[in-house]
C-alpha cells in the first residue's frame, strides 16, 4: 500500500514535470518569436508597403492580403466542408464506399502543400486562366483546407448526442431540418474550434500560395474599395503575397539590408494576428451560440 502511494506520488510528480517541460517548450517558442520580433513592430511597419531591396519596408499589404485570402478561402471551403461532413455523418451508410471516400479525403490532408500548390498553379492559374490571383490562391487553399475542415466538422457532429437527433425526428422533422436547426447550433463551439485550427493553418501556409496567389504584392490604394479596380484591396483578381509567403521570400531571396529584422517582425505579427483571430472567433462564436440556443 505504501509502495503504491509512493509510486503514485512519483508518477504524478513526473507528469507535472512532463507537462511543465511541454509548456516550457511551447512558451519558449512563442516567446522567442515575439521577443525577437517586438522591437521591429511599429505603426509604420504594420501599414507601409514592402520594399524590394531597400530597408524600411513594412508588411501592411501582406497583412491585409493574409486576412482577405483567409476570409475568401473560408467562404469557399466552409460550406462545402459542412455539406460533405453532414452527408458523411448523417446520411452515408456505413459501408466500404464511405470508408474509401473518408480515406481518400484524409490522405489528401497529408500531402505536402507544395504539391497542392503546383496542382493549383497548373489548373487554376494556367488552365482556367485565373492568373496569379487571390482567387487562385483561395481555391488552392480550399483544396488544402477541405480535408481537415471536413474531418473536424464530422467530429463535431459526432459530439452531439444521438438523442438530440431522435428528439427532432420524433417531432416529425426531416433529418435535414434536425441537423440544421438542432444539431448544428448545438455544435457551434466545437465546429468553431475546428475552423480556428484550420484558419491557423491557412494563415501560416506558404508553399501552396507561392504558385497560386503569387509572391508579389503590388501596392494597394486603400481609398479605393471598388472590387473591379486593380489597385483596390478588394479586387480578387490581383496577385497577393501573404505574410507567410513574405517571410518565406525574404528568408530565401531577400536582399534588403534589414531582411532579418523584417522576417522576425513578420513572424511576430503573424503570431499576434493568429492570436487576435482566435480571440475574435471565440468571442463571436460564443455570441452566435447564445443567439442560436436561447431566445
Amino acid at each position, binding site marked *: 500500500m505504501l509502495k503504491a502511494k509512493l509510486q503514485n506520488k512519483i508518477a*504524478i510528480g513526473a507528469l507535472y514535470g512532463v507537462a511543465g517541460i511541454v509548456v516550457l517548450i511551447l512558451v519558449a517558442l512563442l516567446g522567442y518569436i515575439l521577443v525577437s520580433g517586438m522591437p521591429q513592430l511599429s505603426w509604420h511597419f504594420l501599414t507601409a508597403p514592402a520594399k524590394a531591396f531597400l530597408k524600411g519596408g513594412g508588411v501592411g499589404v501582406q497583412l491585409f492580403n493574409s486576412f482577405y485570402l483567409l476570409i475568401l478561402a473560408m467562404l469557399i471551403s466552409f460550406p462545402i466542408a459542412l455539406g460533405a461532413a453532414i452527408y458523411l455523418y448523417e446520411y452515408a451508410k456505413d459501408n466500404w464506399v464511405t470508408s474509401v471516400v473518408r*480515406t481518400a479525403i484524409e490522405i489528401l490532408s497529408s500531402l505536402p502543400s*507544395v504539391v497542392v500548390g503546383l496542382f493549383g498553379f497548373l489548373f487554376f492559374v494556367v488552365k482556367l486562366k485565373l492568373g496569379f490571383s487571390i482567387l487562385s490562391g483561395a481555391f488552392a487553399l480550399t483544396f488544402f483546407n477541405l480535408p481537415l475542415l471536413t474531418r473536424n466538422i464530422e467530429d463535431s457532429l459526432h459530439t452531439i448526442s444521438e438523442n438530440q437527433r431522435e428528439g427532432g425526428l420524433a417531432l416529425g422533422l426531416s433529418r435535414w431540418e434536425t441537423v440544421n436547426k438542432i444539431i448544428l447550433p448545438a455544435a457551434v463551439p466545437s465546429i468553431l474550434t475546428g475552423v480556428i485550427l484550420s484558419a491557423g493553418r491557412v494563415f501560416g501556409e506558404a508553399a501552396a500560395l507561392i504558385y497560386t496567389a503569387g509572391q508579389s504584392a503590388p501596392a494597394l490604394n486603400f481609398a479605393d474599395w471598388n472590387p473591379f479596380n486593380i489597385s483596390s484591396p478588394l479586387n480578387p483578381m490581383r496577385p497577393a503575397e501573404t505574410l*507567410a509567403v513574405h517571410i518565406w521570400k525574404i528568408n530565401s531571396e531577400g536582399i534588403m539590408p534589414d531582411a532579418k529584422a523584417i522576417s522576425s517582425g513578420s513572424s511576430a505579427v503573424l503570431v499576434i494576428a493568429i492570436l487576435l483571430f482566435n480571440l475574435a472567433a471565440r468571442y463571436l462564436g460564443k455570441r452566435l451560440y447564445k443567439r442560436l440556443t436561447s431566445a
Partner: protein
Amino acid sequence: MKNTQPTTADLERQLKRRSKAAKLEVWGRVVSFSALILIVAVVVAIIGFVASKGIATFTTNHVNLWDFLTGKDWNPGIKDAHGKPEVGALSMIVGSFLITILSALIATPFAIGTAVFMNEISPNRGAKILQPVTELLVGIPSVVYGFIGLSVVVPFTRNVFGGSGFGILSGTCVLFVMILPTVTSMSADALRSVPRYYREASLALGATQWQTIWKVVLRAATPGLMTAVVFGMARAFGEALAVQMVIGNAALMPHTLVDPAATLTSVLTTGIGNTVMGSLQNNALWSLALVLLLMSLVFNLIVRLIGRKGRLH
C-alpha cells in the same frame, strides 16, 4: 378539447401527400451529397494528377521501379555508367522514415503525459493554458519553425554532437516541436472519451490515481492514443519547409544522425521550381510525391486498423 379526427380516406390522403419536410429532406440530401461529390472530385483530381505525373517516370522515361526504390544515387539529370538516369530514391525514403519515427518516438511520451495532465490531474489549467497555446502553435508557418530550427537547434546540435549541425537529429527536434501540439490535443480527445465511471470504479476499488491512469484510463484509450501518434507521424512525413531548412538536403544514405540527409518532401520542394515540366527530372520529383501519397495511404490504413480494433475491444 378532443382532437377531431378526419375520415380514413382523408387521413390516407393527408398521410400520403409529400410534406414540406420530405421535400426539404430530398433537398438536403442533394445539397450535402453535391458537396461531398465536389470534395471527392478534388481528391480524385489531385491524386490522379500526382499519379499520372509520378508514373510517367516509369512509363515514359523507362526507369525501373526497383532501381527507383532501392537505388542510392539521386541525380536525375545525369546518366550512370549503364546509360540509365540516376534516380534512386532509397536515401530519401530512409531519411523520411527515420525522421518520422524518431520524432514520433520523442513526441509520444511528452504528448501523452501532457494530455494526461490536462485531462486527469489539472483539467482547469489544461483548458486555460495548454489548449489556446496549442491552437496558436498550429498556425505558425513551417517557415518560422524552420527559421528557429536554423538559428537555435542547428548550432546546438553542432556544438554538442559535432558535424555541421544539419541532419536527421536537427530535423527530428524541429518536427518534434511541430507535431507536439497535434498529438497532444488528439490524445487529450482520446482520454476525454473514456467514460468517467471507469475512473470512479477504479478509484472506488482503492487504486491510487496513478494506478487508475496507468491501468484503466490509458488502457481504455489506447486505440485513440495510437491514432493520435499515427496522425502525428503522417504530419511529420508530409512536412516540407521546416525540415528542408535544417536537414541539409543531401541525398545521401544517412550514416549517423548528424550527417546531412534528405527527405522525400525536402528534395521535392527544393527541386520542383528548378525543373522543366515533362522532363525526366520533373517526373522523378513527382514520383517522390507519389511515394508520399502512397505512404500517407498506409498511415491512414494503420489508423483505421487501430480504430477497428478499438471498436471490437
